[in-house]
């Protein structure tokens, strides 16, 4: 019976060396149930190594970890029985058709009945949009079609945990859109742990993010908090008209710590840093609009793009290493 715990992936100082070269260093990872965890990092950061360690395809040099409460070294067969996995470059027996691959994969998890297995296979083919090519040998499949088949075989057992290594890497925009939608739907049933270098995808579907660099987890956390940045809450406001009195009103507030002003043509841009989010939310716009000579053309909270955060984190890490 599966042991239940809200933490699905839990590693403690997990390390992996290859011939003395450190591929992964003291990885402490926690992935909560039903989350979509985006695992980011530049090429060679150790993302695939981590995934393989979690599945028991390679053994850790030191450290420990559990997946679905099963030990990654001693109970990895049980981990794989409850997990779906899409490798970075999915490879199948070339002489098989897509339907045969899914049938073969399904039999690792189910004895039968045959009619139900066939139903599941057809459902998966339909889900990833390759039903028309279902009975053709895989050797004629494009990279995108192989990727879709890879996703189908990873999901054939409705896994409690879905591990995807670069799931959208070789897909066209339509395929990418389909996979991201699918991931959002699956959140209800599964926990999804996926590696990617496509930051837009992460920003769109993930709720938690981990950034790996040179085998070290350099940042992790809730994506909203990460996108909010570390500078505190900042409002970006674009104004027109006479802003002098409005500026005085706002700058006199105790919860306003800084106002950065930029002028361009007839537009004035304020970047207001606040110390109390609740008060700012309640009063800031009202204070500005008290003055009838001011028009507000744009008003929003500053959000970082994931790419900014990603580059910033990597840059900081590189500086530490130097």
């Amino acid at each position, binding site marked *: 019976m599966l042991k239940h715990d809200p933490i699905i992936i839990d590693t403690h100082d997990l390390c992996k060396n290859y011939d003395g070269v450190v591929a992964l260093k003291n990885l402490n990872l926690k992935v909560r149930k039903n989350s979509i965890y985006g695992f980011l990092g530049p090429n060679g950061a150790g993302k695939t190594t981590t995934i393989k360690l979690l599945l028991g395809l390679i053994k850790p040099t030191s450290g420990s970890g559990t997946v679905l409460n099963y030990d990654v070294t001693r109970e990895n067969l049980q981990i794989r029985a409850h997990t779906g996995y899409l490798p970075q470059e999915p490879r199948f*027996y070339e002489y098989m058709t897509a339907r045969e691959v899914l049938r073969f994969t399904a039999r690792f998890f*189910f*004895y039968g009945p045959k009619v139900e297995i066939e139903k599941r296979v057809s459902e998966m083919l339909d889900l990833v949009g390759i039903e028309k090519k279902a009975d053709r040998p895989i050797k004629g499949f494009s990279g995108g079609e192989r990727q879709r088949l890879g996703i189908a075989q990873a999901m054939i057992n409705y896994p409690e945990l879905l591990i995807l290594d670069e799931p959208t890497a070789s897909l066209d925009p339509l395929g990418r859109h389909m996979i991201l939608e699918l991931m959002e739907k699956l959140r209800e049933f599964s926990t999804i742990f996926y590696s990617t270098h496509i930051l837009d995808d992460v920003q769109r579907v993930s709720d938690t993010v981990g950034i790996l660099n040179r085998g070290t987890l350099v940042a992790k956390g809730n994506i909203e908090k990460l996108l909010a940045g570390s500078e505190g809450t900042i409002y970006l406001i674009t104004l027109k008209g006479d802003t002098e009195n409005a500026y005085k009103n706002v700058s006199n507030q105790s919860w306003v710590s800084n106002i950065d002003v930029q002028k361009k043509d007839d537009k004035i841009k304020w970047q207001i840093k606040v110390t109390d989010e609740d008060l700012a939310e309640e009063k800031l716009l009202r204070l500005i609009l008290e003055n009838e000579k001011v028009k507000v053309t744009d008003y929003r909270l500053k959000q970082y793009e994931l790419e900014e955060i990603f580059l910033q984190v990597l840059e900081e890490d590189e500086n530490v290493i130097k």
Partner: protein
Amino acid sequence: MSSNEALEQVIEKNWQRSFLNLLSVELGGWWKSKTWIWMTLLWVGVINGISALTFIGAEDIDPEALLFFYGFTNGLFPPIAVIIVLQESIVGEKKSGTASWVLSKPVSRNVFIFAKWVGSSFNIFITMALIPGIVSFFEITLITGQNFSFLSFIVASFLLGLNLIFYISFTLMLGTFQNSAGAVAAIPMVFNFTQQFLISIPFVEYLLPTTIFLALEGNPIFASIILGEDIFSILPIIITGALIILFLVIAFWRFEKEEF
């Protein structure tokens, strides 16, 4: 999405989990394609064809001489085919990434190797030992005009199969150590030829699989069985069986250390 409740879930936690699934791939790749037809035709042609061309029409054929010839072709040539067929069995899957894919499913590494061994042994035994063995029964009976026991030919075919399974195990084991098909093929190939010379070293003949087919003095084991004589020693059969088990154990041990 439907649920898993309608499906009967695999619950085994140990080595037998997924064995039949992997075995079906090994058997399907052979019997669902035309491989088995070509292999059967080829080996019936090589084993039975050469004997037929050599002995049909000859007068006063000595059954022992015919069986010596039959044993020589069986002992030397089919192992070469086995090595060629199996050199990529493990290495090919390691290189192409299919081994990594299969092992990411709930299956142990021992089962992966064992299913390959069972599947290959069955496929090769039927097409390269049993069918040519049955054809040989009719062929040798016809050429010599003597009545041989059909059962003795079947037993002899199992001994031919044992020798081939020795090479299957040897090649699979080497595949777990190497990443090059050439290296995997070279060692058993050299061993296959070298045995013909090693047999002349006193006592060593008892330790070699080739003694099942070849003997410097008297009849080799398989010929004695067909002729209804006592075999000179059971030791080569036991040693061959023991080496097969040893190769399998080493393959299990080595493959467990492999990283994918």
